[in-house]
């Protein structure tokens, strides 16, 4: 089994899909010659040429808007937003156009585009380059949302996104690019929209996604050492949301925690907690506990940055108290 980084897996997903489907183009800032700010698209321009790997001016609204128009006219564009923090300038094209076109136009046409971007803390990049903004996307009807936590998912989810008939926002985590895993890319993979149960345990269900999966797994180990066994669910996609898997395990176990790096209030953790509480109420022995990002901007200072999002210790500690 080859050892791959998350970055390499993403790159390979793009390369493999582009080789198969000549209508896939990449469009974004520095995706070509530079190879992507985080190196994901390295040398793809050499392989596929500048007509398919398109370096753009710094014009996020029009990059996304151009992808919308390209998708409506027969291409399958992958637009790249260098940081998810720039969503704020593209939300009109994303939420008012890409997300609504199929519906507004009565089903005449879809917008099969992928918006690749990356978010999260971990590089003390400051308040405008460290956010986790997936909640904006999850709240917007018409958008799909994938957030891979593992190297294999970086590959497979991106491959699957590239066959979606609907717009997919694909959010990578900046702290995961150099993560390595041994992966067999030919092994069977869960279908699009299916969560992965990363660990089975009888005491507590922890639902999470993206980088927090790794913190949760680390916490689960600490907990196991204390005799607490957690089931860990990695959502993989937030839309579609595989609530059936969540329900199954929460009903079995009776205790749930949700973990998200995004700001707590009105975030993804709120949705997950609300839904579990609503649908699994009779099975819950305790409230669903949210462990999420603080409701504050993120500092450049490493200490404050780390302190403002969940980490393995907070997760383990909280789980421990839930079971106490």
């Amino acid at each position: 089994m080859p050892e791959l980084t998350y970055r390499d897996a993403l790159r390979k997903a793009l390369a493999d899909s582009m080789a198969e489907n000549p209508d896939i183009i990449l469009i974004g800032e520095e995706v070509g010659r530079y190879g992507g700010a985080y190196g994901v698209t390295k040398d793809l321009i050499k392989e596929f040429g500048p007509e398919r790997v398109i370096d753009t001016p710094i014009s996020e609204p029009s990059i996304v808007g151009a992808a919308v128009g390209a998708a409506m006219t027969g291409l399958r564009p992958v637009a790249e937003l260098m940081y998810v923090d720039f969503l704020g300038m593209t939300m009109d094209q994303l939420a008012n156009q890409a997300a609504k076109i199929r519906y507004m136009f009565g089903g005449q046409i879809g917008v099969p585009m992928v918006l690749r971007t990356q978010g999260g803390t971990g590089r003390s990049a400051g308040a405008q380059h460290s956010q986790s903004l997936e909640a904006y996307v999850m709240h917007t009807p018409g958008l799909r949302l994938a957030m891979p936590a593992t190297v294999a998912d970086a590959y497979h989810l991106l491959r699957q996104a590239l066959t979606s008939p609907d717009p997919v926002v694909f959010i990578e985590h900046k702290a995961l690019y150099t993560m390595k895993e041994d992966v067999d890319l030919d092994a069977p993979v869960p279908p699009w929209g299916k969560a992965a149960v990363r660990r089975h345990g009888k005491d507590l269900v922890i639902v999470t996604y993206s980088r927090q999966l790794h913190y949760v797994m680390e916490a689960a180990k600490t907990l196991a050492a204390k005799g607490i066994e957690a089931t860990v669910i990695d959502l993989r996609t937030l839309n579609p949301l595989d609530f059936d898997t969540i329900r199954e395990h929460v009903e079995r176990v009776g205790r749930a925690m949700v973990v998200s790096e995004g700001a707590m209030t009105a975030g993804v953790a709120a949705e997950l907690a609300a839904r579990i509480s609503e649908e699994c109420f009779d099975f819950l022995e305790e409230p669903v506990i949210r462990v999420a990002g603080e409701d504050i901007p993120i500092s450049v200072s490493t200490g404050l940055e780390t302190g403002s999002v969940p980490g393995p210790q907070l997760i383990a500690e909280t789980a421990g108290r839930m079971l106490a």
Partner: protein
Amino acid sequence: MSKKSNSDLLGLYRTMRRVRTFEERVGELFVRGQTAGSMLHLSIGEESAAVGITAAMKPQDTFTTHHRGHGIFLARGADPNRMMAEIGGKEAGYCHGKGGSMHIADMSLGHLGANAIVGGGIPAVVGAGLSARHKRNNAVSVAFFGDGATGQGVLYESMNMAALWGLPVVFACINNQYGMGTRIDQATANTNLHERAIAFGLNGESVDGLDVEEVAEAARRVVDGARAGKPGFLAVSCYRFYGHARKDKSPYRDAGEEETGRQRDPVAFTRARLIERGLTPEADLDTLDAEIGAEMDATIDFTIAQKEPPLASMFRDVFDPEEPEPEPVRTRLNRVLATE
């Protein structure tokens, strides 16, 4: 400038008249309380832009429009019944009554969609231009928008990209002098809008919209230029005859100005020219106008007779039809409240 042939002029007239009459009927539908929504923007006074520019387009070409886009689409060949039905929010409409006046689209005629976001449809043509380049299908994509959209930064981003990549793209600005209550000179210091396009490296022209032949000529230059790899910008100056939306009585402009403005009527101007040049007898034009009147009258009856979209269609087409529909709140509530 080589004027187009006479039969062309009659054709241009006919299309302009159809647009004019259609819009008048939209106004009637509104008065009869049969339009979906209060937001209806009529393009009366702007017919030469719609007709002159679409005349320069080829079948493979695509376009986006704005909130005042009925005329453009009709000039492109839309079925007035399906348009009116959409404006009425009926199932028989182009978008099954979900879109309405501001969200009409039709892929078969290359209409990538009207837009209720000022400037919202502009960058899509850059993408359509990339598609055309990729597929080598010789298609031009035209973004239609109003003068007000020149306030939106996305226009400049898109023009810059189009010029940089030499895309077959045209930015068509229908300068009706107003964005709601704001006159163009209250929205910008330099009203020679095409100069901006030139500064970004596009072909840029402004043309007086009174004369549809001149608009068509200018459009041909700009569209052909775009097809050959130099994107263009064309501003057509005209006058918004009526209020911004159906209910707006334009209190912010005085009667004198409106009167002068409405004298700049491209439909009347072309009609007079046909007569003056001895090309079409007035009686024939009367007959033509009456025929068009009857055709457009029928769109009202058609629309009123149509059904509203069924409630069940509400969850349809959020995603691809092969995908599950979003779960309705009621379904979830039934499930949640049943388990107790």
